[in-house]
Structure formats: C-alpha cells, structure tokens
C-alpha cells in the first residue's frame, strides 16, 4: 500500500467559518477514494484543498499539510498554478469553454503550458478523448462547439480536458450529480479504467456510486473526518454509529 497523498492536520475556513477540522488521511495510489457525507460537511472543500482550488474563493484559507509524493503543496515556495497542472479536477457542473471547439477544449491546458506543435496537440486530443470514452462520438465533430454536446458528453469532455495535461491525480467533485443514469454509468466505467493509471478522488452524494466505484471511502460529518477505510468495511461493518446512520439513510 502506497500513499499518493498524505493529508496532515488540514484545517480550512471561509472567512471566520471553520469548515474543516484537523483532517488526517492517506489517499492510496492508483485507487479510487470516495468522500461521502451530508451536504455542507466539507467534502468539496476537502478535495478543493488538495489542488489548492479552495483558496480561489474570496476570503477562503487553509492550513496544514497536504503531501503529494512527499512534497507539501502548501509549502511557501510552491506555486499553486503548478499544483493544479499536476492535479486535475472535474466539477459538478460540466464546464467546457463554450466558445471553444471540442478539440480546443481538450488541449486548452496544454496550450497554457506552451505546447504549440499542431501534430502533438492533435495526437494528445485524440488520445485524451479516447481515454475519456468520447472519441467515437465526436471524432467527426472536433470543430464543433463544446457547448453543443449533451450534458454527459460535456462531462466526459471535461475529463478529457483534465487528462490531456497528464496529471497524476484527478479530483471529481460530484461529477454525476447533473447527469442522467446512462451518462452516470459511463462516467463510472471510465473511472474504473482510469484508476489503473491515475489516483482518483471522488466526492459523491450517491452512496451506491461510492459503493460501486471506490476502493476506499471516507465519511465526513460537520467538517470532521469520522471514518476512513476500505469501502467494503465502511459499507458493511462501519465502526462509528454516525457512519452507519448515514449509510442506511437515517440522515443526510
């Protein structure tokens, strides 16, 4: 077992509101870790601390250590821009750039890092779309607007866009909550494939989804990590009373 990400004593605030309390957690390499918990428990804030997206919200701040491959990403000489290039993120609402074509959406991150070679861009666009299981559906429409796709396709386009910059870790913030069941199962299948090469963390409201896709599950409540363990154990034999209550639907 090897930890890709080790979080130590992580705290986060929105203004004066303390939303994450002393989180310690180790996220395993090449696996899927699900973060579950009721609304407002700090799940999204937690994963947004892993790629330093939390701090882009006005007045938000975080303290503690988040070690990725042994480097603390909150170290003062680390540029958050570099962190976000290594740790991709897929959001709740599919957010392709509407004025860009499908092709340009996929390579947007690469262009930011200065890749100009057209052949290389085309090649990576194709590879990323294939990895995101979208290539067959869009290969003849690469110049169409990213906004012309269906919601599920847009979300896979966003995954392709995240994959194109070759991150090690991809964070999913409730990636299926705006999608229909068929699109959802496509994204879940995709995640199962991606975990061979990437470390995935998914925030989800959907307990079945957590049970289906994840290897590890963390249960958050009121900004605290209540329980963390193998998904099987969390769902079948939770140690904490509140975990059990949440899983069987007593609250949340």
């Amino acid at each position, binding site marked *: 077992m090897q930890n890709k990400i080790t979080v130590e004593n992580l705290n986060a605030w929105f203004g004066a509101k303390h939303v994450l309390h002393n989180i310690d957690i180790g996220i395993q390499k090449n696996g899927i870790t699900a973060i579950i918990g009721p609304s407002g428990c700090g799940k999204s804030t937690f994963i947004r601390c892993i*790629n330093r*997206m939390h701090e*882009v919200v*006005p007045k938000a701040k975080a303290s503690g250590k988040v070690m990725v491959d042994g480097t603390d990403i909150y170290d003062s000489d680390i540029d958050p*821009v*570099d962190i*976000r*290039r290594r740790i*991709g*993120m897929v*959001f709740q*609402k599919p*957010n*392709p*750039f*509407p*004025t*860009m074509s499908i092709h340009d959406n996929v390579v*947007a*991150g690469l262009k*930011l*890092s200065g890749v100009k070679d057209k052949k290389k861009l085309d090649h990576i666009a194709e590879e990323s779309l294939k990895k995101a299981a979208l290539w067959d559906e869009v290969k003849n429409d690469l110049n169409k607007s990213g906004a012309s796709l269906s919601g599920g396709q847009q979300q896979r386009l*966003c995954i392709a*866009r*995240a994959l194109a*910059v070759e991150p090690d870790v991809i964070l999913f913030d409730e990636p299926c909550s*705006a999608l229909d069941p068929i699109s959802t199962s496509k994204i879940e299948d995709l995640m199962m494939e991606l975990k061979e090469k990437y470390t995935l963390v998914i925030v989800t409201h959907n307990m079945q989804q957590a049970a289906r896709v994840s290897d590890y599950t963390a249960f958050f409540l009121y900004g605290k990590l209540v329980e963390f363990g193998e998904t099987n154990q969390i769902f079948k034999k939770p140690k904490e009373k509140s975990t059990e209550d949440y899983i069987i639907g007593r609250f949340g």
Partner: protein
Amino acid sequence: MDRAKLSFFRISRSKLSGDFIFEAVIGFFALGIIILAFLLFRELFIGSALSRDIFGVGFLTSSTWDPVAEVFGALPFIFGTLVSSFLALIIAVPFSLGIAIFLSELAPEKLRTPLSFIIELLAAIPSVIIGLWGIFILAPFIRDYLAPPLSTYLGFLPLFQGPMYGLSMLTGGVILAIMIIPITSSVSREVIMTVPTHQREAALALGATGWETTRIAVLPYARSGIFGAVILGFGRAIGETMAVTMVIGNSPRISESFFSPSYTMASVIANEFVEATSKIYISSLIEIGFLLLVISFIINIAARILVWKLLKVEGGGAT
C-alpha cells in the same frame, strides 16, 4: 358562510378598480414615451421633406455646404460624426476593457464599489464642462505635446500630416473617448461579472494563471456582451453634441488628417439652427437630424440586443 364569500368578492372588486386606474395611469405614461418617439420621428421626416425633394439621395453624398447659395450636402458631417466616433472608440476600448477587467477580476474587494462609483460619476459631468476643459486644457495639450511626436513618428501616414491648431478631429475624438469610457467600462464590467464562477474555475483547475483565466475563460465568454458595450459607447459618441462642438473646430471639410478641424452632424444642428433663415436651410438641418436619429437608433438597438442576448443566456444557464 355566504356573508364571508360576499365580503371576499367585494374586497377583490374594489381592488380590481384600483388596479385598473393604476394600470391605466402607468400605461398612459409608458405609452406616452413611445408616442413621443414616434411623433419626433414623424416631425423630422416631414420637416426634412423639402430638403429631400430638392437634393434627393445626393444630400448624402455631396460635400458642399453653402448657406449663401443654398446648396446643402451632409457628407462632411456624416464623415465627421463617424470618424470622430470611431477614433473615440479606438481610444476608449482599451481603457474601458482595462478598467472593466481590473474592477471585476483584479481589484481588492474593498476598492471595487468606490472605484466603479467614481467611474460612473464621470458620466454625470455636464458635457459643456468637459467641453470647456477641452478648449482650455486638452486642445492646447494635444497641440503642444501629443501632435508633435505623432507627426514626427507617424507623419508618413496622411492621418498625422498638416498643421495642428488645437481644435481638430483628434481633439474631438479624445473628448468623445473620455465621455464614453464610463458607459463602455461599466457595461463591460457588468457583463464580465456575469461570467459564471465555474468557467473561471475550469481554467484555474487546468493550471491557468489569473491573466490566462481572463484570457481563455472570461473574455471569450463575455465577448458578445463586451461588443455590445462598445457599440453602446459608439452610439453615445455619435449623438454627443456640446463638448465635441466646442473642440472639433466646426469646419465642414473632409480631410484625411486628424489634425484638421472637422464638423459633426450634432454640432452643425446646434451651431447653425438659429442662423438658418431660409426654408431649405432649416429643412436641410432637419434632414441631418433625421439621419442622426436613424443612425443612433440602429446602433443602440443593435447594442442592446447583443447585451440582452448574453445576459439572458446567463440567467438560464446558472445553477
């Protein structure tokens, strides 16, 4: 039970009549504006009939403006209006965009409101004051400090040739630019503020810096609205009268140099209406007014449609 029902209806009936009066009154006011605009249009059309009969389409293409011989052509004024307004846009757009981006993306939270307020306050300065400032400060400044380097370094272009006496197309353009920056920047700012957070986050999560986020996510998303804001500024520049009349030199000539004096449609109406003694003179001025109204209408409608379209898309797309 019945009594209760009855009183219920009674209350609602009296409310209804109140509603009716209220609606009739505000309906009258609202409709009044539309009728007024229509009458204005009609009046200008009728008033210009004589000029249209005599000069026909040639009015638009002739550059003779000779009140003594009673021969009139509007081309120098159309030229002056369009060129000074374009010049104003070229100067105002970079400033306005910079202001809008600064206020919406970069400025510290505490500075945003006071700064936007100050910029919008610029629009409240009476244009005659801006015109006075233009005559006494800006025109000499441009003559002494801006024109010489322009003619030295860009003098190979016909745009920057010839003598410069201060009152000129260039001065008019700069004055107009100052006058349209408030509207263009504040509408652009509003449009940029409507760009959803998820678009900015999409760029940031790919490792975009602040400026890159503005460039790849914010500006493309807002582009049609920003274009609308620019056109709105253009519309304002076209109709602006007082300040530009004071600094543009008021000479009905078409010159390719920005250093030469020029004349705009609005200025000629303001300047010459009192002296216009013959019927055809008055009618020609009215026709210029009619043309000005038509041009401003078209431009303002186009701009509003662009801005609305964007705001509407946004309202529907947000979660």
